């Protein structure tokens, strides 16, 4: 069984350091003293909190409900008491805080009621809603909500579904261990994804330095009898585990930046995600934990099933950090992020907690100027020209940097890895990218402000006009009145003048009548009053009769 494989440009072969962390089986990390569960753990909108401080929750209970189009739920990692909802430091390079649910475990670890989901009988949209509410997101590191990807695309079916078990970053072995120990879940999950996306075939790409995982997965496919599923060993080369690179290696298709891979008939899921989807649908369990590699500067590196919200400090303590430890890195050495402290929680994006020391990751040597040697071009898996992007990012000429396709950069770090001038190229790209994003947002805000302002100007103009129109109408009225009085004896409009004449005559008559009316009508007896009234009525009748005549 040999499949034709393709190759991607560039890439590097760093030292892998994977062996130490695969000596022990996956262990369950114990319950910490408190869980710090950030509400925002995935790409997209921030979930809406659904619990209140002081509330007792059970394991798997939703604490953050999905809010918006791109979003994903967050759940309680164990049963216990919601102690607080407060800002805590995030596992993010910035060291800034965000809203977290602080959960104190009660030790009972009670599940909410859950049952397998009859997903085969459900409509695709209903299944997607369940995945969203189960909080399933991509576990490869991008934490993109999976329900949005479980989608056959415009054509109604996929040619190839890629399950990414390449795991190309040094030190990280969580996918490897999961495939070795729990291959059935991954395979079943892949089967579910195959059915949900109507994929013609499923290719599980695993780097060929993991023969045990490959064997375990092959055996699991035979055992479960899943069809159209194939395990493919891919050459070991960083970043073969990049979604686009793996798709390229397995199918030869290149998905350009900003395009949906489903439009090209392919989609890619991480093995951990496949397993989580299996858990969510076949067991009805929301995502509350994941497998995390702890490696680096520790005595006993290994893999742990860690519940989200566990402080990294407690996880690392299980492995015996060496005394010269000076930092924690979330992710691998090539793309990981330095943590602002060791109290930050494990989140859905945490595939590895890499413990570092000055000896292990020595401080970078001083940066030299770029000599345009082209090593980075040779190493770039996205076929970019990194040194040009660097040149313009450094000079803050962002437009130029974008012309060299800055946003096609996947920040894999290959360029910085090979650079003889030891330039932290990726830092410049991150800087340039976030500047450009900020500018675009400012631009959008400015455009919106312009609209509001122009609307306001238009409204003021309209109000002015309306006011002016009202004034003009009033003025015309007064003018007409004045004109009416002025032309009372004129012959300009004969009939009107006549009528006016009559009116004024009648007015005069009335005054005369009033004048001739007897003034002795005050303080009369009721009888006299009745008489007067009678007389008045008669007179009126007479007058009417007269005028009729």
């Amino acid at each position, binding site marked *: 069984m040999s499949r034709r494989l393709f190759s991607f440009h560039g890439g*590097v072969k760093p030292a892998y350091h994977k062996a130490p962390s695969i000596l022990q089986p996956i262990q369950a990390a114990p319950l910490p003293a408190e869980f710090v569960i950030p509400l925002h753990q995935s790409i997209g909108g921030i979930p809406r909190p659904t619990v209140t401080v002081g509330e007792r929750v059970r394991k798997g209970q939703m604490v953050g409900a999905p809010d918006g189009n791109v979003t994903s739920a967050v759940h309680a990692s164990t049963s216990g008491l919601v102690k607080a909802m407060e800002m805590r430091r995030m596992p993010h*390079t910035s060291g800034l805080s965000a809203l977290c649910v602080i959960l104190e475990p009660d030790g009972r670890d009670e599940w909410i009621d859950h049952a397998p989901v009859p997903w085969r009988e459900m409509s695709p949209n209903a299944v997607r809603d369940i995945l969203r509410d189960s909080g399933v997101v991509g576990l490869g590191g991008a934490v993109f909500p999976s329900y949005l990807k479980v989608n056959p695309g415009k054509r109604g079916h996929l040619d190839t579904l890629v399950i990414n078990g390449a795991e190309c970053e040094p030190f990280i072995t969580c996918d490897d261990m999961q495939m070795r120990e729990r291959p059935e879940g991954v395979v079943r999950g892949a089967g579910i994804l195959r059915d949900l996306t109507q994929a013609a075939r499923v290719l599980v790409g695993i780097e060929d330095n993991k023969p045990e995982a490959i064997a375990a997965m092959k055996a699991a496919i035979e055992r479960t009898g899943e069809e159209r599923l194939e395990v493919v060993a891919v050459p070991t080369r960083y970043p073969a585990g990049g979604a686009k690179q793996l798709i*390229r290696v397995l199918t030869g298709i290149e998905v350009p930046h900003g395009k949906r891979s489903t439009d090209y008939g392919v989609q890619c899921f991480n093995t951990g995600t496949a397993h989580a989807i299996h858990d969510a649908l076949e067991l009805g369990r929301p995502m509350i934990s994941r497998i995390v590699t702890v490696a680096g500067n520790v005595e006993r590196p290994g893999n742990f099933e860690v519940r989200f919200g566990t402080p990294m400090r407690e996880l690392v303590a299980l492995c015996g950090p060496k005394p010269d430890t000076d930092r924690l890195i979330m992710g691998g050495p090539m*793309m990981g992020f330095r943590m602002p402290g060791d109290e930050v929680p494990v989140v859905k994006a945490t595939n590895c907690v890499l413990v570092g020391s000055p000896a292990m*990751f020595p*401080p970078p040597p001083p940066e030299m100027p770029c000599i345009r040697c*082209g090593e980075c071009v040779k190493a770039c898996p996205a076929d970019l020209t990194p*040194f040009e992007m660097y040149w313009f990012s450094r000079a803050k000429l962002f437009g130029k940097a974008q012309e060299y396709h800055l946003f096609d950069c996947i920040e894999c770090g290959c360029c910085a890895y090979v650079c003889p001038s030891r330039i932290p190229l*990726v830092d410049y790209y991150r800087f340039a990218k976030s500047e450009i994003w900020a500018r675009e947002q400012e631009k959008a805000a400015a455009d919106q402000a312009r609209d509001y302002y122009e609307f306001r100007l238009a409204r003021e103009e309209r109000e002015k006009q309306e006011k002016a129109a009202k004034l003009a109408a009033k003025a015309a009225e007064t003018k007409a009145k004045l004109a009416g009085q002025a032309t009372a004896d004129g012959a300009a409009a004969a009939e009107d003048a006549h009528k006016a004449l009559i009116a004024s005559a009648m007015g005069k008559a009335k005054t005369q009548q009033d004048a001739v009316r007897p003034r002795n009508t005050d303080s009369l007896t009721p009888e006299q009053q009745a008489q007067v009234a009678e007389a008045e009525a008669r007179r009126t009748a007479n007058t009417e009769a007269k005028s009729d005549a």
Partner: protein
Amino acid sequence: MLDNSPFFRQPASVTSVMLRVLVALIPGTAIYVWFFGAAVLVQIAIASITALAAEAAVLRLRGRPVWMFLTDGSALVTAWLIALTFPPIAPWWLVVLGTLIAIVVAKHLYGGLGQNPFNPAMVAFCVMIVAYPQLMSQWPAVGFTDFHAQMTAIFGARHLDAVVMATPLDALRTALHTPEAHATVAGVLGSNATFGNIGGKGWEWIAVGYLVGGLWLIQQRIITWHMPAAFLATLALIAGAACLAAPERFAGPQFHLLTGGAMIGAFFIVTDPVSGATTPRGKLIFAAGVALITWIIRVFGAYPDGIAFATLLMNMCVPLIDMHTQPPVFGYKGDKGGTS
């Protein structure tokens, strides 16, 4: 403090790149010394000391870390190239002046290492040959290795007219450009003592030395094959075509390839990554352009060799070449002009 991924780095440095370039220059230099005497080594020493001193002075003036940049080796490479392209018996001040121009004007006024749009050594050569055409085209006769006499030429005031000769390229050009002489290529090449069997006495062996060093650089992945191949192939093709058309007026490809600065140019001058093109297609265009202009200047121009001028002329075009030869990025290879 810088502390972002990647936390890993390959052990590579600018210094090691530059040192390997220097190592690759050794075979050519050794043969050069063999034919033209130890004066070459003296010139290298003069140029190196001047370059390092100038570099240190400018770095100090600009408040940059002196030691770090001094040890990167780039100034040494420039100095060696100057010493190897200037005549071995050029007066010392010529080399010093040239090196100063290269380091101060062509390199540091543009910001130093990695930022100069023009090849510093070639800027120095051009300035000097325009300013002192006579001194810049006097080579000692091949085999004239009397160290004492050479030292007098370098440090003294006396001229060595008796032992001074034009380079083969210069001699051939002068002869062909003199209408009264009715010279032909074959006649000139056959008659004059300067000309060896192929490219010029001694010169062909120096060229072989550079070739060996250059091939080693390619093997070391310091340079790619594109530039030397495109340069040599273009030069050979044009020279060959012209020679076929009018053999009495144009020398053949073997002469052009093995004489003057063709080999050192192909492997050490056009391949300068800082001032040269960087995309694969761009490199081919760049080197071919240098070869074409070199040949034109050699055959029709007023200067003995054209590589320096040709390199500068193509250096100017590099931004445009690079801009228009960017390889398609991931995902856009299929469609033409897929730049979004």
